[in-house]
């Protein structure tokens, strides 16, 4: 295994490319459940924010942040067309009846503002263990979805037909704006 700090910097693009692909999946109505190979009904939506970055000619970077519940994503799609990629996205993930909202950062896969399905809070000692287990289950569930999708993305990305199929589909989507 490579040195952790070196690997973090060298391969952070994989997370950003993955988030861009997630946006593509959402916008082109791809069935997440079948990608995950699960019987659960899993859907993804873009939530209330998306951050993109674009390298300019020199060493500087352009950062495009779109925020707001009803915000239009036109600036984001224009940035994609100019060569930007997604570095952070707020997602709404529904797994059967349960709804999760969270923001994920491409380079670190850190999750912030995670809201899991509501559970009844209690201060009774004997119920705390139940609450902990339920909350833990929700956290495990959302990371399972993220990891499985990420590894599925890498499977596709390293497949022989990626350049002709996977990459071309994303490019066609970007060109369609």
């Amino acid at each position: 295994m490579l040195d952790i700090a070196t690997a973090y910097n060298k391969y952070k693009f994989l997370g950003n490319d993955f988030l861009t692909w997630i946006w593509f999946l959402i916008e082109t109505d791809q069935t997440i459940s079948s990608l995950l190979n699960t019987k659960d009904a899993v859907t993804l939506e873009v939530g209330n924010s998306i951050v993109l970055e674009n390298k300019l000619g020199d060493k500087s970077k352009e950062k495009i942040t779109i925020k707001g519940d009803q915000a239009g994503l036109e600036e984001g799609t224009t940035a994609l067309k100019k060569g930007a990629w997604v570095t952070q996205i707020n997602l709404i993930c529904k797994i059967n009846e349960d709804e999760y909202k969270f923001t994920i950062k491409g380079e670190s896969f850190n999750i912030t503002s995670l809201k899991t399905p509501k559970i009844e809070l209690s201060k009774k000692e004997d119920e705390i263990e139940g609450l902990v287990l339920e909350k833990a289950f929700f956290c495990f569930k959302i990371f399972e979805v993220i990891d499985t999708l990420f590894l599925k993305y890498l499977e596709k990305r390293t497949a022989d037909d990626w350049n002709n199929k996977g990459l071309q589909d994303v490019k066609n989507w970007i060109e369609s704006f």
Partner: protein
Amino acid sequence: MGLISSTHSISRYHVDGKIEGSITEKVRNGLIKHSIPKIESEYDEILAGWAPVESPYNPDFNKFSFLFGTYFLFSLRIDKKTIPAKLIQKYMVIEIEKKKKESGRDFLSKNEKSEIKETVTDILIHKIPAIPNVYDVLWNYEEKNLYLYTTQKAANEFFETIFLKSFNLKPIRLFPYTIVETKSKFSNPQKDRVLTLAPLKYSR
């Protein structure tokens, strides 16, 4: 308790290695050995250690559990003394004036001023109480997964150091590269292909 609050920030780890012997006992011992002291230190600017999730301000692992179902759940508490810059400035002005009067001079040298700053900071550090921050740690030992309920860099660094000292296990931060290395079932040639990938260019 952070874990059962309404929103979370989470960073993840893969825990490399195994505990030999009774896992629960060894975890308990590690937690007790590196738990945060009950009595606040007057001299330490920063202090970090484990505490039970149910009693982070009165840490006692003999009284409160760290085992929930099959998971270990405990807290990392970091107590930090932060002196507001304006407070240092205030006492520096007072001390500088005092010294000028005593010496009968109109000005103080750079060295004298930095000595005064050091003394003022030392005195204030002793007087100011530390501000505690508590972050929950959920450890799924069987799956080698660990969830730290914060994404703050300083807290992550404290966590990594104290965890290694407590359990002699190295927590590996999970991000795109380490997920491939530790969580995928990719064959070695497949992993090699991932490692040769380069950033995509979507625009024409």
